[in-house]
């Protein structure tokens, strides 16, 4: 429409730019803090521009660790986070694509029951059953293990529903043509369903990787050893209630390192991310 075109456009730019700046400011400030020394920050003198201690801070955090309660280098924590995020993302994709395949391409007794058993888990996050789940994991001897970190979070209906939805869009004729071409359940899955599902798999992977990387409560409970901590837990432990002991420049360095991988994934794979997010919306 022609009316007020100029004025409207300017207003849009102003508001959007403001939004971008406000969203970016906390992260920018964290980055700035990660380039200064402890004293500057502790005095409340942090400038608005980066300082010269960047290399030192990042090296120290990544390979030596901070002085406070977490002695492990952040590199180790990042590795733990990576293993957990990958296990959750891959595990979820694996079990949910198989179960969706069974539910969509077979008719068998208790099929609906199986679907509902999975479906009900959709809205119930780990937070509401936290201690009993902790006990199960403890009884299985999985505390302080990657399996314990990831297995309980793999159980969710999101992936199954997403794959089911996608499989429903594969034309029936494709299976029929495959049958005539002599492909059974295994060959149809490997030769046709899997290649066609690649975008869906990638989208789900992006979402679940972020979900796994950002887990907080669960790793907080089941990791007791320092060398099993994830980075999100590690940074929280760096911040002590008494300000004097908090090495803010290192905490902020760790914060930047903690948010970099998932943010990079979102920006680099933006299309897959948007698609995954919109489609996994329950």
């Amino acid at each position, binding site marked *: 429409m022609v009316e007020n075109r100029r004025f409207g456009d300017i207003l849009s730019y102003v508001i959007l730019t403001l939004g971008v700046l406000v969203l970016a400011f906390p992260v920018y400030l964290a980055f700035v803090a990660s380039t200064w020394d402890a004293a500057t920050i502790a005095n409340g003198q942090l400038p608005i521009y980066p300082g010269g201690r960047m290399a030192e801070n990042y090296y120290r955090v990544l390979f030596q660790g901070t002085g406070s309660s977490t002695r492990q280098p952040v590199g180790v924590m990042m590795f733990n986070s990576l293993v957990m995020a990958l296990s959750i993302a891959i595990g979820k994709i694996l079990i949910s694509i198989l179960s969706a395949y069974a539910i969509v391409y077979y008719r068998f007794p208790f099929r609906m029951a199986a679907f509902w058993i999975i479906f009900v888990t959709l809205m119930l996050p780990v937070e509401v059953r936290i201690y009993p789940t902790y006990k199960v994991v403890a009884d299985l001897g999985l505390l302080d293990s990657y399996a314990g970190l990831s297995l309980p979070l793999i159980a969710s209906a999101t992936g199954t529903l997403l794959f089911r939805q996608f499989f429903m869009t594969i*034309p029936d*004729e*494709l299976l*029929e*043509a*495959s*049958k*005539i*071409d*002599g*492909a059974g359940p295994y*060959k149809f899955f490997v*030769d*046709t369903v899997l*290649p*066609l599902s690649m975008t869906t798999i990638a989208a789900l992977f992006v979402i679940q990787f972020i979900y796994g990387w950002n887990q907080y409560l669960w790793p907080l409970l089941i990791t007791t050893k320092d060398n099993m901590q994830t980075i999100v837990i590690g940074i929280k432990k760096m911040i002590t209630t008494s300000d004097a002991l908090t090495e803010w420049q290192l905490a902020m360095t760790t914060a930047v390192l903690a948010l970099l991988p998932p943010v990079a994934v979102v920006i680099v794979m933006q299309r897959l991310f948007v698609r995954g997010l919109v489609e996994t919306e329950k």
Partner: protein
Amino acid sequence: MASVTLDTVRKVYLGGVEAVKGASLSIPDGSFTVLLGPSGCGKSTLLRMIAGLETVTSGTIRIGDRVVNDIEPSERDIAMVFQNYALYPHMSVYDNMAYGLRNRGMAKDEIERRVAEASRMLAIEEFLTRKPRALSGGQRQRVAMGRAVVRDPQVFLFDEPLSNLDAKLRVQMRLEIRRLHQRLKATSVFVTHDQVEAMTLADTVVVMSKGEIQQVGSPTDVYRKPTTTFVASFIGSPAMNLMPGRVVGRGMVEIANAGTLAFDAGQFMVGEGDQVEVGVRPEDWALFTSGEGGLAFRREFVEELGATRLVHGSAGAAPIVVAIPSGANDPETRDARLVAKAQAVHLFSSATGRTLRPA
């Protein structure tokens, strides 16, 4: 090559819907048979049962001498072309054609030879490395046919393969299918709701309605000697005029409030006073300004089609369409006499809708 024989084949779906009500049919080796009918008549179900994509509720299906009721689709030695082509979207054209052969464990050079031959025959050689989405509708259609041809099957099955094409391409592909059949001489079963497709392609047309086979015959047969009012009205465009009448004498039938028509008494088994359905094809009418005999016709409007003109009107209570070749005589008066040759008048039983010609 092989014949296909259906013996009282029935299909009842889980909900109790009877899609095919006991169809018996013999499709000779090397013939081109078209299953024709409106949507929901059971023609696709019948084809899919031959393919093995639907289970058979009762009855038997034979391909050659072998009962195939419980044999997997891939073991039936058939090939199928789907309405939406069902090409594997992630495979190249070559792989689409080779996939079934590989699954059968065929030697690589034999696969190559067959794909090369089929793609030459269908003029798709230059697309072999492309993905289906990079092809036009007509090209996809050829690939789908190529996938069938490379299998060198006993029977080709076509499930409305032309209905996703635009009108011009449809005519072109129709001719190609016909040419292909002449070359391969493979038994073919073709499902369509398009009567022109059926008439032009078929050796034998099988007209179906509501799960039942109405008539089996050559295109000329089903056109010239329809055995039911359904076939009479379904085949031919515009449709055959059907109107209720009463036999009033040897070879004479009366249409209420319009007059009488002569029919070939030797062709039909009727007695005086019988209630019948009288059928006359639009092109079998002739219009005269005056004279006795025939029916009183009231003209309403005209559709000009170029080669013919369709004159719409009524005779008594019955709506009538008359097709007049351009250049032929049209009196263009509001009231006229409507006459048909005796040989062109069809009689059907009012009660059953079946033809009154003796079997």
